[in-house]
């Protein structure tokens, strides 16, 4: 059960319910969405810099970039690829308890992706990925197909969430208590609640949005309070962002324990912090509405609540740093990505702090500062954690080890490029540049050029990462059963109970 996928075993990729085969297929689909979204990102950036711009086309590309990256890549990537592969192994469950849901979630993801690609190829929607009403209720685009795609994706999250909850409750190895689950398994379990609740809500919302657009019916239709949509959207999407961040935190915890060969310091504190983050994720959607027309009293309350997030975030950081301290830290690619994560997600959290500070939140609302913050959290945080996890579990998933040196170099290139590409957004936003403009004013051309250079370095880093990982499948060294000397269930079958991080 701990051997890599055996393709020779006559696996039928369309009908399989095997968690490993499903996870690998999710890898292709989410990576495909990422590459398409990345192509959009490159074009968007080039057009901003070259000022050869058709604003309507720019708007469509911006919308598709956002939808692809957020809903088809960042939200599902870690749970569907790393989670599907590792959870049954970490729990010693062998397989998900409801394998038909494993398969269903993949099929819905595929159908959703195809529907989205179809909507793009017929007529892309240009309403922005947050679909702010009433502007999104008019304007061209195959909206019905787009909402169908999003509803199908929400269904995929729901299916996978139910599956994870059931498997954690009923599929743990005998003798493994809740507090003997690895942290990554915990993070997936908590995320599943966000998937089930917020995913369902999101699916319903996009259907209502389509109704409002088609026939002015429903809560977002004619004469609706324009803030109602934004409130509901973030009520669903803020937990969904958490649903991307919690497993990211789980991956980072796992990788740090693995590469430093130390038990997670303050295991219960880490789990408690993840629970707190999940709870706060459901209560803090209103921070997205500060400076958007929300009543001052609500902005006050949401800002105060969101700042409480500092406590679980500090506890997590403390545990991560403590686990590195006096570890036996491997000089390896996952370590590089962990450091990149701490830097980038750190800047993401701190720019988020400025968006929760009431007066600066008002000032920065709708500027590219918020865009920069989003990229630091979602790409600097979630994407970097995903890459850390991929490098950590790659030998497990494919049985081959990539080049460790190229792994570290690509991680550093990625980190440098990422910061050069997105720090300028924070600066431009602070100067007052609004979101979604196809050209930048003359005074900001310098920072824009830096961002473009950063984007090419980032692209170079990503090409290095992908060629290193996939190149290893061809000519990589055979990896041992447990190259990191890690202790959790996926690395050693039939382990006894107790602390998952004690050998």
């Amino acid at each position: 059960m701990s051997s890599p996928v055996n393709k020779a075993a006559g696996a039928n990729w369309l009908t399989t319910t095997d968690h490993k085969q499903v996870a690998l297929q999710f890898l292709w689909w989410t990576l495909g969405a990422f590459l398409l979204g990345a192509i959009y990102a490159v074009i968007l950036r080039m057009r901003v810099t070259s000022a050869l711009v058709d604003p309507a086309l720019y708007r469509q590309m911006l919308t598709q970039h956002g939808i692809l990256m957020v809903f088809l890549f960042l939200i599902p990537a870690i749970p569907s690829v790393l989670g599907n592969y590792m959870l049954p192994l970490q729990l010693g469950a062998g397989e998900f308890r409801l394998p038909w849901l494993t398969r269903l979630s993949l099929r819905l993801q595929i159908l959703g992706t195809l529907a989205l690609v179809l909507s793009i190829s017929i007529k892309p929607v240009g309403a922005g990925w947050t679909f702010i009403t009433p502007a999104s209720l008019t304007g061209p685009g195959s909206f019905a197909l787009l909402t169908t795609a999003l509803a199908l994706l929400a269904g995929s999250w729901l299916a996978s969430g139910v599956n994870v909850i059931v498997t954690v409750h009923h599929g743990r190895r005998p003798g493994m208590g809740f507090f003997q689950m690895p942290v990554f398994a915990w993070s997936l379990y908590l995320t599943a609640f966000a998937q089930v609740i917020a995913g369902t809500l999101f699916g319903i919302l996009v259907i209502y949005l389509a109704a409002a657009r088609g026939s002015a019916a429903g809560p977002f239709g004619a004469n609706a309070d324009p803030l109602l949509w934004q409130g509901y959207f973030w009520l669903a999407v803020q937990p969904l962002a958490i649903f991307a961040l919690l497993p990211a935190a789980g991956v980072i915890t796992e990788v740090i324990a693995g590469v430093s060969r130390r038990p997670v310091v303050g295991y219960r504190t880490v789990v408690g912090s993840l629970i707190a983050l999940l709870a706060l994720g459901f209560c803090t959607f209103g921070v997205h509405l500060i400076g958007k027309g929300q009543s001052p009293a609500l902005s006050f309350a949401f800002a105060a609540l969101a700042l409480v997030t500092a406590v679980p975030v500090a506890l997590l950081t403390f545990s991560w740093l403590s686990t590195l301290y006096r570890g036996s830290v491997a000089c390896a690619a996952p370590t590089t990505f962990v450091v990149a994560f701490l830097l980038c997600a750190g800047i993401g959290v701190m720019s988020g702090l400025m968006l929760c500070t009431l007066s600066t939140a008002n000032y920065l609302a709708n500027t590219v500062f918020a865009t920069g913050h989003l990229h630091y959290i979602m790409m600097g945080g979630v994407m970097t954690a995903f890459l850390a996890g991929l490098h950590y579990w790659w030998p497990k998933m494919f049985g081959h080890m990539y080049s460790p040196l190229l792994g570290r170099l690509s991680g550093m290139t990625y980190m440098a490029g990422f910061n050069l590409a997105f720090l300028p957004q924070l600066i431009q936003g602070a100067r007052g540049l609004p979101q979604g403009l196809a050209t930048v004013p003359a005074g900001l051309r310098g920072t824009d050029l830096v961002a473009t250079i950063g984007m090419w370095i980032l692209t170079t880093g990503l090409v290095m990462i992908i060629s290193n990982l996939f190149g290893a499948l061809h000519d990589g060294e055979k990896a041992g059963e447990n190259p990191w000397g890690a202790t959790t269930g996926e690395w050693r079958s039939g382990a006894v109970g107790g602390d998952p991080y004690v050998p």
Partner: protein
Amino acid sequence: MIATATTSSWLPQAASTQSQGVDPAFYGVYVVGAFAVILVAGLAMTFVRQFPRKGENERGLGDARPNVKLQAAWVLAALGVAIYAFTAGLPGFLDANAAPWMSYRVLVATSQDGYKFTYPNGHIADTLHVAINRPVRLDATTADVIHTLHAPALRLNEPVLPGRTAQAWFNATTPGTYELRSAVYGGDRYQDMRTAVVAHNPADFDAWMIRVSDVFAGRTMEQAGELLYVTKGCKTCHSIDGSKLVGPSFKNVFGHQFDTREGVRITADEAYIKESILKPNVSVIAGFEPVMTPFEGKITDKEIAGLTAYLRTLSDLGGKPAGADSTTAKPAGKEVAAVAAPAAPATPHGGK
């Protein structure tokens, strides 16, 4: 034209008192946040170097208990940062939500076509002119989708939502021209959804306002009267198409004869119209209530003449105006026009 930032700072050069609520909070949180990021990333890099794996089978410390005192200090520090951020941002936030008493009130109408600013005296313009050191309150509405009033140099960033009146205020401190635009996508013309705020010295602002708001400049008496019909509020109660509102329609009034409530037959000539504007409830036409606000002291003789000229154009008995040919403005009006016309797109202090 548009004021740009000095390259050394994150925020643009401040041109309003609103910056007192935003800038210190921004830089304060920025310094604390940058320190925290450098601390965390720096510690991680230090530990990676300080505790490298030395042997194939080496393991790290097996004890998983955290240093509780250090952990408590770490969390308290983070909580301290959060509380600092909250308190630093609160005064500016509360201040931004309450315009000072007796602010200069400008109505802002936004739509996908752009911005329209209506000044207290009824003057309408598509750029916002203000005097420095005089709080300006903006009451903004939108005709279609969400737009915003986004002027970074003035630290102004107010969303305007359909069905609501948004209220924002600022107090400019430096004369100059600053960009004001929408920061929320509002359709295909979003890119060009922008205008400017021109901040003048108070004396220059008053002179500008007198110049541009002279309704007679560049207009015939009839055209001036047509504009006054809107800006003086006649339109609310008097139609021009013959339909009966609160007051009589202006269609076919001039030169016609009417009975008053007291049964006196009058002719709506220049003298009667003047009386009906200044003391409207003395001689009210039958069928209407004496409810109009007297305009005595609120309107000039010239404006009355303009309105009268406009009423002539609406009447089949309007004929030629009495006396001199007034199809062009009176001499006084001509002078104003001559002065105002070349200086119309006035930007007295230019950009910075």
